[in-house]
């Protein structure tokens, strides 16, 4: 009966409707607080759950890429592995180094998780499903994202260990370097949408030509921006091939080496939450947010599309991790400042060009011009930055 009465629109808005129904039971004075709590709880449940699913997917996927099984013992096909991991990390001893700065050492993981969660406040997960529709949402997201660097520094410094300090140093250098192209890559979308509000950005990408959507990905500056954004996001979330801060072979686990038990799990959680948050931002900016990819698929609820897109990006992250080896520190920095940054700046110029070149019958010319302006410097830069091998004849002075 009820199921029959539900239209697709109701299914799409089911969480919003439930929230309103629950709010009606609360006295009017408490409604603002109740509304906030009711919006926060789903975020606090959904994304850690996604983290649990991602860990098992990642371990199984990486295993398969290396022709292994991956975890397959706990539950059906090993899918209850995160529960076992969680119980294990909860029951482990919490070791704090004797000479550590105890207060800061304790606060670092908590601050990190809080910072990782704050970014979700402005992300629209579905139609009408956003915690706060800030008119400076993108700005808020990046501002909160840089708190991660502070907590990484707190963790690295307070542990009083050379490995964690080196790891924190690397992590901060990397995060600051890649935050610049990350922001610059998203500037193009702000220019086009004319708003910093993520809800407005999603709305500006709604609408379809035929069956195809108006995503910013389907413009020359959009696709370049998306690629640059994803590279910077990979580096920002410390994932392979940019996982120098936790390079196992040199500095064991990086800035969180002195953490054990549940605090270690919190670092792990925050890292994945950061990855989901930047991926969600990429979806919102370039992939139409919660919008369906084809016009006849709009009957599927918006939040389903959002999480499907997020899963696709996560799978791509896992694929990249299974493929690429870790970069060297100088390669990492050179890549950020000599290649990504100029390309991001150029992309802003191209977005302006796209805006002022005439559309309509000359659309293909507009495409060609924009692609040419992007591709030529890309090729020139990548060839000129290619390190030429200098082979010298080695002489052994004491051998003769």
């Amino acid at each position, binding site marked *: 009966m009820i199921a029959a009465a539900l239209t697709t629109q109701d299914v799409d808005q089911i969480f919003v409707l439930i929230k309103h129904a629950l709010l009606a039971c609360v006295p009017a004075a408490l409604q603002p607080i109740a509304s906030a709590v009711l919006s926060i709880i789903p975020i606090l449940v959904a994304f850690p759950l996604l983290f649990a699913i991602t860990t098992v997917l990642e371990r199984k*996927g990486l295993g*398969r*890429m*290396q*022709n*292994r*099984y991956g975890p397959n013992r706990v539950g059906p096909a090993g899918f209850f592995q995160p529960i076992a991991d969680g119980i294990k990390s909860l029951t482990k001893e919490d070791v704090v180094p004797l000479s550590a700065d105890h207060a800061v050492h304790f606060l670092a993981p908590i601050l990190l998780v809080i910072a990782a969660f704050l970014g979700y406040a402005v992300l629209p997960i579905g139609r009408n499903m956003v915690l706060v529709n800030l008119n400076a949402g993108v700005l808020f997201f990046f501002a909160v994202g840089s708190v991660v660097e502070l907590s990484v520094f707190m963790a690295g410094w307070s542990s009083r260990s050379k490995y964690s300090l080196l790891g924190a140093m690397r992590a901060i250098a990397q995060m600051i370097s890649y935050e610049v192209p990350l922001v610059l890559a998203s500037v193009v979308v702000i220019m086009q949408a004319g708003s910093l509000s993520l809800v407005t950005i999603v709305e500006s990408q709604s609408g379809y030509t035929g069956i195809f959507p108006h995503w910013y990905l389907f413009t020359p500056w959009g696709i370049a921006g998306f690629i640059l954004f994803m590279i910077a996001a990979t580096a920002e979330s410390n994932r392979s091939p940019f996982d120098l801060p936790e390079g196992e072979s040199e500095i064991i686990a990086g800035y969180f080496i002195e953490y054990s038990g549940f605090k270690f799990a919190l670092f792990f959680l925050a890292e994945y939450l950061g990855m989901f948050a930047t991926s969600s931002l990429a979806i919102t900016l370039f992939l139409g947010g919660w919008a369906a990819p084809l016009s006849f698929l709009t009957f599927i609820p918006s939040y389903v599309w959002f999480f499907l897109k997020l899963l696709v990006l996560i799978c791509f992250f896992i*694929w*990249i991790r*299974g*493929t*690429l080896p870790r970069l060297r520190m100088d390669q990492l920095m050179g890549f950020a400042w000599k290649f990504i940054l100029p390309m991001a700046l150029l992309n802003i110029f191209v977005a302006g060009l796209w805006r002022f070149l005439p559309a309509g019958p000359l659309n293909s010319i507009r495409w060609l011009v924009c692609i040419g302006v992007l591709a030529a410097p*890309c*090729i020139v830069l*990548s060839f000129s930055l290619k390190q030429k091998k200098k082979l010298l004849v080695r002489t052994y002075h004491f051998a003769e």
Partner: protein
Amino acid sequence: MIGNGILKGLAETARNFFGSYVSKDRLTTVQYPEQHIPQIEATRDFPFLVYDGADWESGMRCVACQICEKECPPKCILITKSTDKKPDAVGKPQFYPAVFDIDISVCMSCQICVEVCPFDAIKMDVQFDLPTDDRFGGLLLDRHKLAKSNEYYHQIHPTEATAVDTALAAERAKAAAAKAAAATPKPAAPAAPAPAAPKPASSTATPAPAPVAPMPVKPAEPPIKPLASESSKPGETK
């Protein structure tokens, strides 16, 4: 082209990913508790004590000479020599180990005890999955736990066990012949050169070491025969 290497790498990992679901040959992992890799014959893990015949206590080859205890590098063997003598499988009175303990949590599987044993009494087992929830008592094997039949030895190391049996049989035949020659020099003299032939023994029926009782392990019958029949002979002469 730029990024060609990355695309090639992505294609390779994708091929691995889907290939591992299609062809089982790609997955070389052995799912351990359910699957086992077939062991090679020379596998060795922890020592055990060999006994002849059906009864582990009377048939034990060990005579508590304590050489292995002294030679053991990590000192994991503890032997207490008996004060009395008991007849061994052959019937000859021998000292026996009143206590023979091996702490397999200390044992490093070096096989030195096996190499120094003059009686072929200690050999290497192939049993490696010995988990226990009692990390002190459960890993300290006493002589009853260590005692394994000669048939078991034949089953796990057939070539080695046959060689040992042949050597033992030859030695005992030689000893018996020498003894017989000393006792009655004239008639036994022609029998002495016959090295390992157990023919004369078969005629003299033996009561003591009865045919081996059916063991849980499948006995490798042929190599056992000469020893059983051979052992009967000195017993009779004694």
